[in-house]
């Protein structure tokens, strides 16, 4: 059996019985046990992990581990995670009771996605992909209203260009502020019916999990 790791937690009690706990030093990993030969690309497994991830967030703040990390035992996990533990502990202590919310906004002028066949090298293709991503921008008035009404509800916020067609605002908010963020999102929907956007969450610590580099 192997464990498909879902997150890093401060307390074991935040994991059981929703998922399987695995000790890494004084922290805990949550995971889902699967057979060693279970392919990770299996759709049913992905959906089960996504569901468990959401249930774990109801129990307490945790750091999301990117899908694809598996461990067989505590010693195995400890070897792979040792370099992260101090930072994870600080993040989990400082962000206890907080979650992330995501505002994804379709670009006002989406850039064409470069076609790999048009480039002689992978490096040139990735440069073009990066340039197209960085050039995407959203309606400036929409952004201004978001900065005025949404970001003040967050402890931290961060804009990022995700791809050639969208920008994203990550918000670190206290769990009790989620309803206020959703209300602000509903007001945006009313006032900017022509701007395609999606407010989603709560999510575990994803964007703000690496703030203590």
């Amino acid at each position, binding site marked *: 059996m192997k464990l498909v790791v879902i997150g890093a937690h401060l307390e074991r009690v935040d994991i059981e019985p929703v998922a399987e706990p695995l000790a890494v030093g004084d922290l805990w990993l949550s995971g889902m046990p699967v057979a060693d030969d279970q392919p990770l690309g299996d759709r049913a497994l992905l959906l089960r992990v996504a569901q468990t991830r959401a249930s774990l967030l109801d129990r307490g703040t945790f750091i999301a*581990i*990117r899908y694809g990390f598996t461990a067989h035992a505590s010693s195995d996990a400890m070897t792979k995670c040792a370099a992260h533990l101090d930072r994870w502990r600080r993040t989990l202590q400082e962000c206890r009771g907080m979650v992330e919310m*995501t505002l*994804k906004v379709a670009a006002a002028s989406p850039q064409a996605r470069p076609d790999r066949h048009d480039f002689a090298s992978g490096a040139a293709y990735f440069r073009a992909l990066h340039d197209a991503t960085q050039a995407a921008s959203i309606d400036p008035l929409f952004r201004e209203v978001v900065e005025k009404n949404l970001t003040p509800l967050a402890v931290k916020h961060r804009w990022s260009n995700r791809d050639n067609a969208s920008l994203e605002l990550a918000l670190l908010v206290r769990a009790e502020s989620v309803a206020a963020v959703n209300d602000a999102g509903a007001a945006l929907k009313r006032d900017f019916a022509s701007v*395609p956007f*999606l407010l989603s969450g709560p999510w575990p610590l994803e964007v703000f999990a690496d703030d203590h580099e």
Partner: protein
Amino acid sequence: MSDENDELSLLETLDHLLDRGVVIAGEAVVSIGDVDLLYLGLNVVLANVDAIIRTSQPKRIK
């Protein structure tokens, strides 16, 4: 409309699962090792924005 919102919600969930969170150095890519899954990740990101735009467009009344 409900089906579209469900699709959007699923895409967003998969996008977060596959493309967010801490990467354990040298581990995620090795563990995934499954080209189909990497493609799924890319397709989810692209389909996600398409779905946001589609669900934001007003419905035409016949």
